[in-house]
């Protein structure tokens, strides 16, 4: 039965069987690419401003964002803008009260962000299930015990899922820890003595310090929502992000 279906499908789509294909020609100088070298399996593309902060130029295995500093949510959305725009599913576990359109304004494709309602012990259950498949997930670190966190990290490394710790409690050994040193809002004015205030909040400047596990680090200014065109605005409409498979 099944072979009949396969044959019908092959005929309909005009496929050839393997026997009809020409044999593959060997590399001219006998060179074969060793399996160890080659692109790493799961580096997610990020926007160029974030890429400067990450050790491999992309989102990879374990990253932490210090949750307590102001502007951390904007940084998180900017971090997820690259992967979601490249078509990768990202999950945000147990962070209630976020306004999703802020994510969209920072460049996130909302159709690829799963917001998972979970609290208490459910966070560990949900994170364990998500670690089997999604490209990246954001987990609050106080939702898991240190032992659970270690198990989750191991599980995610095996399946190639990137973990972004929303660091409400310090976690051990992230590959990169991003911390917003300073957040400044742009566009509002003092408007002293007026009854109608001119201007509007139109941009935000984040000074982000990255500390890498390898010992290095970077500092960068990130403008998640706007700024001065030509200087610090990353045009996401024009920019083509890397291929994600």
């Amino acid at each position, binding site marked *: 039965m099944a072979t009949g279906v396969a044959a019908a499908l092959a005929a309909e789509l005009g496929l050839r069987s393997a026997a009809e294909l020409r044999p593959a020609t060997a590399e001219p100088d006998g060179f074969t690419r060793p399996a160890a070298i080659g692109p790493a399996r799961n580096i997610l593309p990020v926007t160029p401003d974030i890429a400067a902060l990450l050790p491999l130029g992309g989102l990879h295995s374990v990253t932490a964002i210090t949750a307590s500093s102001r502007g951390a949510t904007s940084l998180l959305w900017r971090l997820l803008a690259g992967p979601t725009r490249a078509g990768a599913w990202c999950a945000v576990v147990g962070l209630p009260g976020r*306004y999703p359109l802020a994510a969209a304004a920072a460049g996130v494709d909302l159709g690829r962000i799963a917001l998972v309602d979970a609290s208490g012990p459910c966070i560990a259950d*949900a994170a364990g299930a998500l670690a089997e498949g999604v490209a990246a997930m954001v987990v609050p670190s106080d939702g898991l015990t240190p032992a659970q966190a270690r198990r989750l990290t191991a599980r995610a490394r095996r399946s190639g899922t990137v973990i972004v710790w929303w660091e409400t409690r310090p976690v051990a050994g992230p590959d990169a820890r991003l911390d917003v040193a300073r957040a400044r809002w742009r566009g509002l004015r003092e408007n002293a003595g007026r009854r109608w205030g001119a201007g509007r909040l139109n941009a935000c400047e984040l000074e982000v310090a990255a500390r890498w596990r390898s010992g290095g680090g970077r500092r960068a200014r990130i403008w998640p929502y706007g700024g001065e065109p030509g200087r610090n605005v990353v045009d996401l409409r024009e920019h083509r992000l890397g291929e994600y498979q």
Partner: protein
Amino acid sequence: MSATVTRAMARTLVARLPDWDRDDVAAFAPVLDALDLLTPYVEVLEPGAVAVPLRPGAGDEAAFCETLIDTISALTDQDCVTGVADGLFAAVLAAREGRLVPAGGDAAFLAGHPIDALTATGLVEAEVCETLRHLGIETLGAFVALPGQAVAERFGPLARRAQHLAAGRLARPLTPRPADPDLTVAETPDDPYGTIEQAVFAARPLAERLKTVLDERNLTCTRLTITARTVSGLIRERTWQVDPSASTADLARRVRWQLEGWGIAARGAATEGEDGVAVLALAPGGLIGLLEAGKGLWDAKNATTARAEAALRHTQTLLGPEAVRVATATDGRDLTERAVETAWEVEAPPPPASGPWPGALPDPPPAFIGDDKPVTVLDVAGAPVTVAARGDLSATPALVVSGGKQTRVVAWAGPWPVHERWWSEESRRYARLQVELADGSAALLACEGGQWKAVGWYD
């Protein structure tokens, strides 16, 4: 000695629902169920029209038509017109007028019809009928009288077949509607499964049986309903979307997830151990042919996406289908109106934002939705700041008091008044103000009915 036995021709009844305006086969199912009470053989010509074969001499045709019309109007509240003739084409035309064509009278009945009726065969375009009319062929009778070879040469083989039909020949037999087979597989163990693990262990062979049953019919399913009945009679049931190409292992894993999810839900109920699973059943839904299912694989959905969606479905099984949510930007002016969260793959997302909304807050929106706790905005002198009818403030804001904590306003902008839906009951009038506070935070405040609230915090 020999005898020639001539079997009387079967007759055809066509029932039409003249008021049926939907193109939906599923909505037509109740009508078919009503017809099933009268006859087992029903062919659906299109939603709103069915054909039933009648054995000659089986009874009074007019009385059967009456019963059929009464049944349909009683059970589905639909008017119904019937027509009976020897052939299907004649019966379709007879059903337009509600006539019973006597046996052998098809040709005479058809001959009087205008040539436009030829489109009802589905073989001939309306333009061909128009051409025939211009050629002076006004009725089906005149069309039948044309030499067959000339029709085939001028209009092609389809028109020739239509000519045969119009002459009352070439009646095709009806193909009865196939009954929905019951494809549910169930496992009733001798000893109820005491633990989830035992039930999970049984799920794999059950999924294999389901796959075999479907494979035998060249089908695959896009939905899977998992039912578990416990010894005490409690029935738990949930339907899941499954990938049509899902393997037995995938189906078994889905059953395992579901059972574990129910196990987590029952964790606090402390019924485990006493209440075993007595019956475990899998019912397929949304059946499609394997060939169509294979085509789905050629879509853009790559392996990574499929894996991610499987993980999200696993999460749904553990926490409930409502737990995985996807946000969509939609129409609206207020912050909460503009973003809608829907349960992924459970609820349909709202339509995307359709146009400019004058008066909506420009980007960036606040990162946090405020808790709607009242705040107080004070001026330098400590007097409350209010918004005047013309849309300006009573004084320059200097302090924001939230939860007993006073914070100085460093910079601000606004207010931007909104007066929406003034024509209806949902009329709203409020003003928005952006403030940056001395502690580095920025907030969006709204004043409605004289009361300030923090509707959002920037972060």
